[in-house]
């Protein structure tokens, strides 16, 4: 774009490409939803490729690859491998890219899901399917922006960290700690099952704050005690299996028995 993007300090502006895999495109849309701030961000980088917003073709060389969506085909796996080879830094954005997200609900029994929708006539245009997985199942990922959809300001913060460095550590706490101040009170007291017990904090507990249970879109916290959380849900009268069933929505891959990948 304009001349003022040519340099950051003394160096060439970092070239960033943004690629969407299997997704709703919502995280990319949400990046455009920061409107005026977006122009400030674009003033710091050279936007190399972003199919959603520009007809500029994919450049040969780039510094940062931002990936939205889950890996659901062999072609997509090839795409992310190629991005990894060329980019100094890879950022996975959104639940699909970070945990497998909603697409990974089909990971457990892919063939039967495909048959249910397409019968025995899967169109060639779908590509060669593989069990939906997060980007990190295929390549090393340097930074992750969680949630469905991402908070675009969190994306800006992570991009900033990727470009200029940051000493901020990833949040590891579970959501409950952030949510306790919520004026509505714990959703379990209102008879609702909430996944805030095990979900990584950082989103500000927006859903419980609006009266809606956490659905785990930020992914499991490394501090989560899933066994204890299951027992807690059971103690509140939820049938065995309900807690894991709810977790399947955004955490099917993390829940799958080890050794499947």
């Amino acid at each position, binding site marked *: 774009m304009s001349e003022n993007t040519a340099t950051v300090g003394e160096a060439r502006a970092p070239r960033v490409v943004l690629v969407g895999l299997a997704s709703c495109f919502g995280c990319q849309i949400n990046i455009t939803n920061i*409107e*005026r701030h977006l*122009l400030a961000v674009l003033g710091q980088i050279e936007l190399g490729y972003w199919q959603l917003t520009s007809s500029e073709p994919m450049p040969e060389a780039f510094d940062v690859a931002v990936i939205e969506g889950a890996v*659901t085909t062999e072609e997509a796996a090839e795409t992310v491998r190629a991005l990894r080879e060329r980019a100094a830094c890879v950022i996975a954005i959104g639940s699909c890219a970070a945990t497998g997200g909603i697409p990974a*609900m089909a990971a457990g029994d892919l063939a039967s899901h495909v048959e249910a929708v397409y019968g025995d006539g899967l169109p060639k245009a779908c590509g060669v399917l593989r069990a939906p997985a997060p980007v990190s199942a295929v390549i090393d990922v340097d930074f992750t922006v969680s949630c469905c959809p991402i908070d675009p300001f969190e994306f800006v913060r992570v991009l900033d960290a990727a470009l200029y460095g940051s000493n901020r550590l990833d949040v590891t706490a579970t959501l409950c700690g952030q949510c306790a101040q919520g004026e509505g009170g714990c959703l379990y007291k209102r008879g609702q099952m909430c996944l805030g017990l095990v979900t990584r904090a950082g989103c500000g507990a927006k859903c419980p704050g*609006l009266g809606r249970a956490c659905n785990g879109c930020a992914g499991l916290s490394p501090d989560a005690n899933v066994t204890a959380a299951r027992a807690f849900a059971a103690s509140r009268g939820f049938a065995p299996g309900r807690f894991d069933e709810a977790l399947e929505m955004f955490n099917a891959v993390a829940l799958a028995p080890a050794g499947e990948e």
Partner: protein
Amino acid sequence: MTATRISVDHVARVEGHGDIHVVIENGEVTTCEMAVVEPARLFESMVVGRSFEEVPYIASRVCGICSASHVVTDIRAIEAVFGVAVTDRTEALRELLVYGSYLQNHATHLFVFAAPDFLGHKSVFPLADTNPDLLERALGLKALGNELCTLVGGRSIHPITAVVGGFTHEIEAAEYRRLAEAMDASRAFALASVDLFRDFDTIALETAGDMLAMVAPGAYPVCTSDTARFVRAGYEFAAAAVEEEIEEYPQGSSAAFLARARRTGAPYMTAALARVNASWGALCKDARYAAAKAGLRPPEYNPFANNIAQAVELVDVLDRCAALCRRLAADEFAGASAPVPFAVRAGVGTGFTEAPRGALFHRLELDGDGRVRRASILTPTAQNIANLEGDMRQLAEKMVGEGYDGALIRLEIEKLVRAYDPCLSCSVH
């Protein structure tokens, strides 16, 4: 003469992944495809067995930009099964949520996706240098749509607060009043947008297919009717009969199922243009006048006019949202928005709304525990692709006949694809 091949991999400035293939041999268009190359997304199968409480949340993820429409449509399908009658206030909030996604979608499509073609740019961003005022106002309108969705739905996409029976949270009256004022303040730019898109040169085309839109007597409905109308063939049907009226069929080059009307066999367009054709008389006065001034009057079958129709809807939606916000602030709608009580029961229900990009149907069969037995989703773009391909062919034939070269034909075909405002990721579900 040699063959000209127009091949665009992952056409830019549309949502989702699609490839254009056109082959022109000896002055004849021999191949003309809009291939949707999304991976299988499998929503209709993934929701099977899931509880009704989760299903709108999952269906929302079909589409990032019309997530509000998927949520409201799914909720309407579930409420049809359970026999839930929501309050007038909840209906008003759902309309407001859907209109919020219209503002988001139309502002994004018109300025970020479509306008760069006509302004000679590869993206909207060079406007920061060439026309910062236009960029500022365009992004401001888009931001207003985001704000409306955030205040009503809890965030700009994938709404949180809309549930079966009502809403889990609502904003204060003062915030509705502030929104109403912001809507009023944006009207002048929306009116200017109609003129802007009127002034862009487009090629004269007349789609051979039909047009489909939700209708209601004396109204311009988006989520409050269960009747759909084929504008050209001139007949209506109940949304519950969607599977008897619309045939979905596979085509190998596309990961999406395509659609046609069963009675006529015709492909069709469903979009802002179809709505304007179907309900012109019920547009708000400002919007109707702006449309007339721009030369957009029914019947209008040039698909490029969908850009103008979306701009007209921006005017219409701003007026409607301002009025809805003022009435919500004044507590003029009966009942509260907190979810009404309901009993879970088995059955089949159809949800029907006008998403920003056209008619959207969700059909759900639930068991006695409220779990999904079968789901069928019909998105606007899945319905549009067959008609788009017909229009692409007509456009290519016309331009070949008039001696245009491949590069210009390619550009016009891309413009046509964008005029349909396709959501290719949505079309695969």
